[in-house]
């Protein structure tokens, strides 16, 4: 009885038979691209086609961490811009995105990891991103709950401290961008499934949906973990992607004890305290591809073991909630943003793995530029699909770990 048919972000719109651009996937990348298409490029005749509801996928399942301390010279500037955009978007959208600029701490558990961190920090500093190497004692000063003793599975040697990062409220970004896009005339169609993409003479001509056919010269697939499957199914284009379920969980709420995002590659574990007091923590991905988003006792046990090792004050604390999402992993841990190549008017934005949230603001801006002009902006050029056949993989991960399951 309190249910209103009017969505939070604007009026419900009728599905038209033609649009200037169609975006498949009502997640953060799709919403951000639509927002910038309408706001910066005057392309307001845009439809977002979402099978379920906006924010159903990764947009509402990630652990909301933002940072710009990636590894390669191609990725860092993109993530830096994304990070710089949070305060700007908060104002522009007139929507509180709750950016908590608490800083990130990446724990290092060996001298080899410290060396890798030195290189990553040098890259960050070269690109104007604040990042420091600190030793275990300094890490303990920042996070007093940290166990820096030598008798744990992976003793802490030091950490990479990245003060500009933090946490952004992910649902707020979904609603803020939806509101902003709708204000500029974008149509958001929920519960509408894209079933096929039509081409004529090598050019995009339309999209078939569960509610009828749409004529359009431009299509973007930015459907998170579902992108690779959709792109193969609809267009027969294979991608170097493996889709894995990734899990996250929160503990019962506690008094404030963590005021940074702390993560550890060796433990495959990260933790931050939400504004509600829960410790939000994530796990490594499943070991084989699946679309289930199911949770496993295997990983709950892993998280409990890891956390009670390096944050021993959490021993005995109960997990309250657990959920899963999809991560579309590429072999070089860098995304694929491409368009106007395989098929004229077809754009893709996928392969983000678990980096989709922290990149969405900047990617929306550049993908919109790409779709509006038809020419790939310099910022996105290194992320093309052909880099795999040209054997120019990006090296975003430091050879120590490979996250794809078939490796």
């Amino acid at each position, binding site marked *: 009885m309190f249910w209103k048919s009017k969505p939070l972000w604007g009026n419900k719109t009728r599905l038209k038979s033609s649009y200037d651009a169609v975006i498949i996937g009502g997640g953060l990348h799709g919403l951000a691209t639509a927002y910038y298409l309408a706001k910066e490029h005057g392309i307001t005749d845009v439809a977002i086609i979402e099978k379920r509801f906006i924010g159903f996928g990764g947009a509402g399942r990630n652990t909301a961490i933002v940072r710009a301390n990636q590894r390669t010279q191609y990725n860092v500037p993109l993530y830096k811009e994304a990070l710089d955009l949070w305060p700007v978007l908060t104002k522009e959208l007139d929507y509180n995105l709750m950016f908590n600029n608490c800083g990130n701490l990446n724990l290092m558990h060996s001298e080899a990891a410290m060396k890798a961190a030195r290189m990553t920090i040098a890259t960050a500093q070269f690109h104007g991103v604040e990042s420091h190497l600190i030793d275990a004692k300094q890490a303990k000063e920042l996070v007093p709950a940290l166990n820096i003793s030598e008798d744990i599975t992976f003793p802490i040697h030091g950490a990479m401290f990245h003060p500009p990062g933090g946490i952004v409220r992910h649902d707020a970004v979904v609603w803020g961008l939806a509101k902003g896009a709708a204000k500029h005339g974008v149509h958001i169609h929920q519960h509408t499934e894209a079933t096929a993409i039509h081409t004529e003479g090598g050019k995009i001509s339309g999209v078939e949906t569960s509610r009828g056919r749409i004529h359009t010269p431009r299509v973007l697939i930015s459907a998170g973990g*579902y992108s*690779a*499957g959709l792109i*193969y*199914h609809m267009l027969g284009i*294979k*991608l*170097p*992607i*493996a*889709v894995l*379920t990734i899990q996250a969980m929160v503990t019962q709420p506690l008094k404030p004890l963590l005021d940074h995002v702390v993560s550890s590659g060796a433990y495959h574990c990260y933790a931050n305290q939400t504004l509600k007091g829960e410790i939000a923590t994530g796990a490594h991905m*499943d*070991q*084989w*591809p*699946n*679309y*289930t988003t*199911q*949770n*496993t006792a*295997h990983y709950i046990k892993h998280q409990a073991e890891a956390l009670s090792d390096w944050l021993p004050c959490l021993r005995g604390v109960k997990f309250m909630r657990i959920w899963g999402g999809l991560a*579309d992993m590429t*072999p070089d841990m860098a995304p694929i943003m491409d368009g106007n190549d395989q098929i004229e008017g077809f754009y893709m934005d996928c392969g983000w793995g678990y980096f989709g949230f922290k990149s969405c603001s900047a990617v929306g801006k550049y993908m919109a530029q790409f779709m509006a002009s038809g020419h790939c902006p310099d910022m996105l050029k290194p992320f093309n699909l052909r880099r*795999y*056949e*040209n*054997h120019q993989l990006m090296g975003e991960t430091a050879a120590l770990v490979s996250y794809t*399951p*078939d490796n």
Partner: protein
Amino acid sequence: MALTLTCPVCGQRNGYEFRYGGEDKGPRPAEAGLTPAAWCDYVHMNKCIAGVQKEWWFHRDGCGSWFTTWRDTTKNLEVAKPEASK
């Protein structure tokens, strides 16, 4: 994620004993006349099917066999080989 796989030597075993070996892409392409695109297709490219696919598995914590089997990626269950007509 209660995955059980059928190893040709050991029979049905817990999925965590195995390592996933990728989608089955058929035989390795011949060296003669191999283009970068064809090699890339074999090495990197996947179909990411939401449904039943044929894939490679390695019985890592068992007999060490490599074998192919069919699995439904939306249910995470091993399934019988689909009929040839499909």
